[in-house]
Each structure stands twice: as C-alpha cells, then as structure tokens.
C-alpha cells in the first residue's frame, strides 16, 4: 500500500471515531522486507514479505486507554478496532487504572516526509541483489578460507502514518539495509564466532562494498583476531584502565545511560529521584557529552515519534552534567523532563515506549588517530598515540576491548554488563590477546571513568533494542576509541583474581 493510500485509510478510520468523547490515535504501518542468507557458498534462504496493519489506541475522556490491532490494513477492520479499543479503554477505567490525559496536550502536527532512500525499494531487482550478495560472499570465502562464513543481507522499507483525533496526520518512510558477515573459526578444537556489518538506507551498501571491500577486510581481520582469541588465555578479573572501541562505547551510552533517562523508567531509575530526572547531577568529568537523536541515512533513523510528534535531538549529558531525558508525551512531565518525541514502537501492533534513536558519547579531550586499513595496524597506532601522549599507565595492563556483542542494564540498580569479542593489552609491545570477559559495573561510576577520546566520531554501531519485549532498531557511537581510567566500580570478569 502506498503512502497516500495509507494516509487516506487513517483519515477515514479517524472519522469513524468522531462521535467518541475521548481521544484516539491510529497507527498504520506497511512494511516490506527482502532478506537473503548465504552459507558456505549456497543460498540458505531468500525471503520476501509484506507486513502491514493498524493499531488503535483509544482514551476515555478521563484518560484510561485501550488498544486494538489487526494485520489487515482495511477501513472496515479499522472501524471494528476503534470500537474494540474504546470498549477496552472503558474496561480499563472501570478497573481503576492510573488516568493519563497528556495526549490532549500534544501539539497538532501535519507532516509528510518522502522516502530518503537513494535507491528505492525494488529499484534493484531481487535477482540482481542476490548476484551482488553472492559475489561479496564468494570474495570473502576466497580471501579467508580458514573460516566458515555466512553472509546475510536485509532490506526493509517501513511506511508509517499516525493520525490523531486533534487532526494530526504524520506520514513518513524509513528505509534501512544491512549486510552482515558471520564467521566461525576453530583453532586446536576451540571455536569462536565473529560478526561484522555494514548498514545504510538501501542497496547502496552493496554497491559500496563491491567497490571498496571494506567489510570484507574487517571480516578477515576480525576472523584472524577470533582465531587468536580461541587459544588466548583469560585475564584475571579486576579493575583496569580500559580503551573501548566505538561499538562498545555505543553500548555503554545506550545500555548504561540512555535507558536510565527514559521517562517511563524514572520511578525505577538510578538517575531519578522521587520519580523525577536528577537534572544537574554530575555524572561524568567536564567535557563528556551524550547526545541522542535521529540521523538521516542511519539504521535507527526515525523523524517522528510513533505518537506523531517530531523526534528531537537531546543533549542528555552536557559537560559531564545530566541535563535532559528522553521523554514521550505520556510520562515526560511526570518524570521532570520535556517531551522530546521519544516514543517508538516495533510496529503498529505495539504500544510506543520512550527509547533512544542514535546515541553518541563524545568528549572534548580528543587525541587524533588516523584510522588504519587493518585491525592490528590500528591497534599499534592506538598504542603509539597513547605512548606519545603519555596516556599509557606504566606497570599496569591497559586493555583494549574490541567488538560489541551486546549488553544489558538494570536501570533500577544501575548495574550494567557488556561483552566484547576479545581483549588486547596495548601496554605490552607484543600486544597480547586475551579471551573476552564481561565488562560490568555501576552506571554512576562508569561515566566518571572516561578520560578522553581517540579519533573522530563514528556513529554507525547498530543493534536492536529489546526494551519492553519490542525489537526496535538502535544505533550510535563515539570517538573511534574511548579511554577510561581504572575504577573500583567498573570491572572485567575473567578468572578469579
């Protein structure tokens, strides 16, 4: 269904609700996806799919809500969903729910954003995409035959239209594409896997990769690193000066900090007090900044919230001081923060929650670093830069953590964990490699440990945020590397120390 047709549908479903004395939000979505996976030179799967539907969130005039969804994007179905959502909202009111009338205060927005993709969905026929992905996969297999390789490519286009009782009608298109290599290597009977990706809005990522082989080189470097990790020793657990790559820094900003400033969590967040954001709290040294906001062309780009508000770019931490949170219309005021259009949902079938888009962690004190073509050359450059600037701590390990494997946080307790692909001690000129171990600590300590950045900003670390059981695209980054002092509240797991 095209953007205009979806808009017309949303208008007509909204019209059905005109006699209701409450408030209604309609979310319509049409999602198209092509995906393929090649394993060891053979197509494992090529899949096409449409997924579309309607979600209706109704509010009684006193602010109790109900929600009804269907995967049939049709007017008659929309009418039934409106009735059902209203009925559930009334049930909810009778149950004694906490009432919330904030949606009545939302500004009316009328906007239509076209598709920002350079190559619109379908412009490159699927058969051509298959040929390109196979070519990329074959090239990697030839170049690194010691690994078992799986290559996948996903291309998605989401059309959203959000309509509200107040006349708001917001429509936008989100295109995204990702090319991934997953490798498994074995040394002395021990196995390790590695995964690396290249993302963008559309099939341009394939054309770029065919031209420059950047992902292939990274995959080979990471596979070589994984081979070394297979037989690497474990570190004793403890507290070390750390250097983390920008993927891990994104994880740090996202897991350890971003979630703790989302407005629906303020009752349980360590960055909240009596349900309000602890604005003015020093959480990092001067010069540390955390910013969240959509970037055009990015994996997690979304220009409007799923409640039909403009998504704002927010400076969460400015110069080490907690300044703002990520607020959606329903809980921002209660959480003591402005509404920033932070509501995002996995699909029409989910209730939007306040959450991040692209989060970046930046520091004023940045040492220049020229990116090297190969991983270990870059690690050498990191060591040399640190030595030249007197940043290597004498007589102690300085550990470079490479590759973000994901993380998790408990915003209530402030505990966080991350996992990396492996660790290198850059204080030792031999650059010894160690097995990965969990990087864990307390939110309120970890930012205080950041003492500088190395290299320019890289913001294309992508992932999928699973908050509330919904899978939503997330991204972010930092300087190429972040430097962190040893801190008693931030530790690496590993062998018993």
């Amino acid at each position, binding site marked *: 269904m095209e953007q205009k047709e979806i808009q017309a549908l949303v208008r007509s479903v909204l019209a059905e609700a005109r006699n209701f004395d409450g408030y209604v939000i309609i979310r319509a979505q049409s999602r198209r996806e092509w995906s393929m996976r090649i394993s060891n030179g053979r197509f494992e799967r090529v899949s096409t799919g449409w997924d579309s539907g309607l979600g209706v969130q109704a509010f009684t005039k006193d602010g109790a*809500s109900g929600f009804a969804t269907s995967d*049939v994007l049709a007017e008659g179905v929309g009418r039934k969903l409106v009735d059902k959502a209203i009925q559930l909202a009334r049930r909810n009111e009778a149950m004694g729910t906490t009432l*919330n009338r904030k949606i009545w205060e939302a500004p009316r927005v009328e906007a239509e954003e076209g598709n920002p993709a350079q190559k619109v969905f379908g412009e490159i026929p699927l058969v051509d995409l298959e040929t390109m992905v196979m070519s990329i996969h074959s090239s990697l297999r030839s170049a690194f035959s010691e690994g078992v390789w799986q290559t996948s490519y996903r291309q998605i286009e989401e059309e959203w239209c959000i309509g509200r009782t107040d006349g708001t009608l917001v429509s936008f298109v989100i295109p995204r594409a990702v090319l991934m290599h997953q490798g498994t290597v074995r040394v002395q009977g021990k196995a*390790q896997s590695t995964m690396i990706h290249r993302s963008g809005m559309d099939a341009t990522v394939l054309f770029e990769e065919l031209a420059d082989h950047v992902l292939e080189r990274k995959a080979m470097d990471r596979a070589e690193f994984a081979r070394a990790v297979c037989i690497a020793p474990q570190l004793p657990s403890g507290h070390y000066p750390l250097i983390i790559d920008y993927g891990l820094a994104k994880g740090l900003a996202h897991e350890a900090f971003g979630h703790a400033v989302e407005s629906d969590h303020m009752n349980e967040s360590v960055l909240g007090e009596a349900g309000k954001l602890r604005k003015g709290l020093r959480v990092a040294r001067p010069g540390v900044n955390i910013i969240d906001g959509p970037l055009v062309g990015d994996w997690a780009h979304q220009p409007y919230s799923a409640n039909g508000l403009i998504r704002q770019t927010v400076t969460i931490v400015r110069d080490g001081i907690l300044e703002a949170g990520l607020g959606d219309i329903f809980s921002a005021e209660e959480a003591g923060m402005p509404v920033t259009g932070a509501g995002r949902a996995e699909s029409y079938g989910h209730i939007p929650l306040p959450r991040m888009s692209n989060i970046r962690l930046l520091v004023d004190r940045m040492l220049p670093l020229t990116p090297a073509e190969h991983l270990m050359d870059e690690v050498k450059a990191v060591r040399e830069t640190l030595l030249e600037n007197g940043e290597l701590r004498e007589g102690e390990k300085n550990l470079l953590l490479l590759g973000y494997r994901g993380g998790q946080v408990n915003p209530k307790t402030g505990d966080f964990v991350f996992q990396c692909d492996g660790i290198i001690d850059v204080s030792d000129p031999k650059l010894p490699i160690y097995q990965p*171990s969990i990087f864990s600590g307390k939110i309120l300590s970890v930012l205080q440990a950041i003492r500088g950045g190395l290299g320019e900003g890289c913001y294309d670390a992508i992932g999928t945020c699973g908050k509330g059981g919904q899978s939503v695209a997330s991204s972010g980054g930092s300087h190429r590397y972040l430097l962190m002092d040893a801190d008693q509240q931030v530790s690496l797991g590993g062998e018993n120390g």
Partner: protein
Amino acid sequence: MKLVAQLEDLLYQFQQAPKTENLRLSAWRILVNDSEAVSVGIKDNSPGSVYTPPSYRQGESGEVFLVWADGTCSQAMVQLPALNDPEYWHKELEQWRQASYEDPDASHIPTPEPLPLVAVEDRAIRTIISGDDEILFDQAKRWLTDRPAQAKMQGSIQAAWGYRHVRTSTGLAVTYQQSQFVSWFSFDSLIGGGFAKRRLIQPEEQEALWSLTVSRYEAMQKEAPPIGPQTKVILAPSMTEEMLGQFILPNFSGDKVIEGQGAFAKENFLDHTLVFHPQFSLTIDPLRPLELGSYLVTAEGVPADRTVLVRDGQLQTPFLRVKDAVRWGAKPTALPHGTAGLYLKHQAEVPWVDALQGVEDGVLVLSVLGLHTQEAVSGSYSLSAPHCIRILKGQIVGRTDVKLTGNFFADMLASTTKTARSDFDTHPYLFIKTGVQTL
C-alpha cells in the same frame, strides 16, 4: 475468503494450469496462523497503564514455500491483502518467482503421515477470547491487592487462541485449534514468577507460584553473608532455560552442525560423542499435553514425535528440519519452539525441596545480566548476577551479588552437576560447580 483458502486456490492453480510455464509450481507448502489475543498489563503498580493497556490483537498471516518446475525454490511471508485487487496474488507470485533460488535439498515436501493426538487447546481460553475475559482483569486486581506493600510491581497476562493451518502439495491439509496462556509478574524488577502453557493456570498453581516469589522477595530484603570458595551455584529453572537457549539450542540446530557453525561436528553425532555427563539426557517432546512447546505437526508438515538429542550424555542427533534431514540422511525430527519443548533430565533428579535441604553453602541464581552476549559456540560465560539468593545449611538467608565464570559445556559434562525438579517449570534447577565471585 480466508487467507489459507486464497493461497490454496492460487497454488493449486499454478501447479495445474499456470498462466505461463515459467510460473509453474511443482510443489508447495503453506502455513497460516489465524489468531486472536487479549492481554492486560501492570506497570508501576498501575493496572492497564498507558504503556500496558488492555489490548486485543487479531492476526491472520503465514508463510509459503514454493518449488518451481525448474527445481528452484521461493519462500515468502504472507498476509491478507489490504486492497481488493483481483490481481494481487498473481503479482505476488510473479515476485516470488523473481526471488527463486537454487536449493535442491530444500525442495522435498514430505508426504502426509498420521498425526499424533496431542492436546494443544484449552477451551476455557477460547471463552476468554470470545469476551468472557473477567478472569484476566480479576487476576491483575488480585496481584495488586496481594503484592508486598513496598514492592513496585510489573506484570502481564495474555490469553491467545486461534487456528493453525498447514497445507502441502503432497496432500496434507490440517487445521487445528491451539491456545496459549502466558502470565508473569515481578517485584522491583528484581524477582518474578511466570507461567506459560497452552492452558489456563490453575488457582493452586497461581497461589504456589505467588507464595514462592513473595517469600524469595522478602528474603532479598536482607543482606546475606558473602559467598566463599566452596559455595555451590544453583541455577533457578528460568536460568537453566536461558542457559539452554543460549548455549545448547544453537549448537543442536541441524543447519549449524552441517555448516560447521556449531560447537559439535556431524562426526560427533555419528560417533555419539559424550558431551554431557552420562546421567543426563536431552529431549524434544512436542507430545506433552498442553505444554507451550507441544504441537501436532511442524510448519513443514512433519507430524510431532519425540526426539532424543542426548542420551546418557552422548550426542544422538541435532534437530533437523526437512532440508537438514535430507542433507543429514535421516528423517526430520521434532523441533523446539524456542526452549519450549526441550527437556533436560538427570537420572538422579530430586524434588527442589529435598535438594534445598542438602545445600550447606550455596547461591541460587535467579537471573543474570547479559547472557545473550555470550559466545554460544565456545560455551564460555562470564556473567554478572546481581540479586541472587544466598543459601546456608538448607535455608534461604538473604541476598547477595555474584559474578559467574565458566563454560556451560564443561558444566554439563561434570559429574558434580545435578538437577532438582521444579513444581512450576518444565526446566529443572541446575546445581553446578563453576567460577563464582562476589560482584
């Protein structure tokens, strides 16, 4: 017209008399799920908050797998067309044709076989979906009334019911009703309890689950003595399930084994390599009545049957979808639904209450942070586990925070690893000797 009927008409037509020979199908299969669900949630002690309102969901969608006359395959996700376009499915079929690829092992569509009798539907859930849903709202209210006074409670109750349709070009035409009931609650986002089966929870099950969770929550209010070098680690059933999901399931997936992307090689299975302690077995059992992992037939048309993955500690088979079975040279096996349907059994398993009495110095791990980030192929883990329960001399004495470091394959092979049966969960408590430190 229902989606499954539209698809059947279309695929039969293009098998028998396609518009062009290029679009001729030689075989196909269809899976359609036609379901409705109602749910209600609790957030921060508020029933049906703006983030967890009472919800109704209706969906009719599925997937098709096609084998074209030239032997190539296509697969696609499908749902009812939004517009009344008589040419819609023909256009879709042309696109599916464009997406076709060569995968000769995948092109086998099984011939129909007798289906087992498995209970997968609770009629009481259908009643809820039909509108008699007070039970959900009453349960949410009761939880909030009974919760510990100081606790910030989150929770959710969901009932789902619907039809599952499986059709194949070889003559399988199965439609059956299935249901699902999932409920969970947590206090202060630290400790919780959950239930997930194809039937409603019984009042006595709810009461026992609630009492256990509340008593553990209360125990967590006290700081416990720190752990020592002799402290035994006990994984709660939900943790055992998560460990199986992270480290075992991916390595028993037939495609991973065949492609050399798992922890075990095909030869390990053929040689029946010992990978668990000989007292352990691991089974996929979709035949247990009203369990979440139970079904009558797979999406590929394979009747449900029990499959032993590990017997007496030795590898038997990975789980094999039809394509993997062709490549393996065996029959397709049972398939797990996530970790549902997967059963780990130790020959010397005892009830939890008895096992607890015998714990001199232990720590019960209820949850960990970051398990999903761990390396599945190596089996190694390095985990942070804040808010564990400390056990001394068979008694729960309070809360402690630990770090775990080890290897799950080594845990499963160790003679010191034991299990205890849970009253509420299909997965057992798992007693392991692993690296444990104070967090």
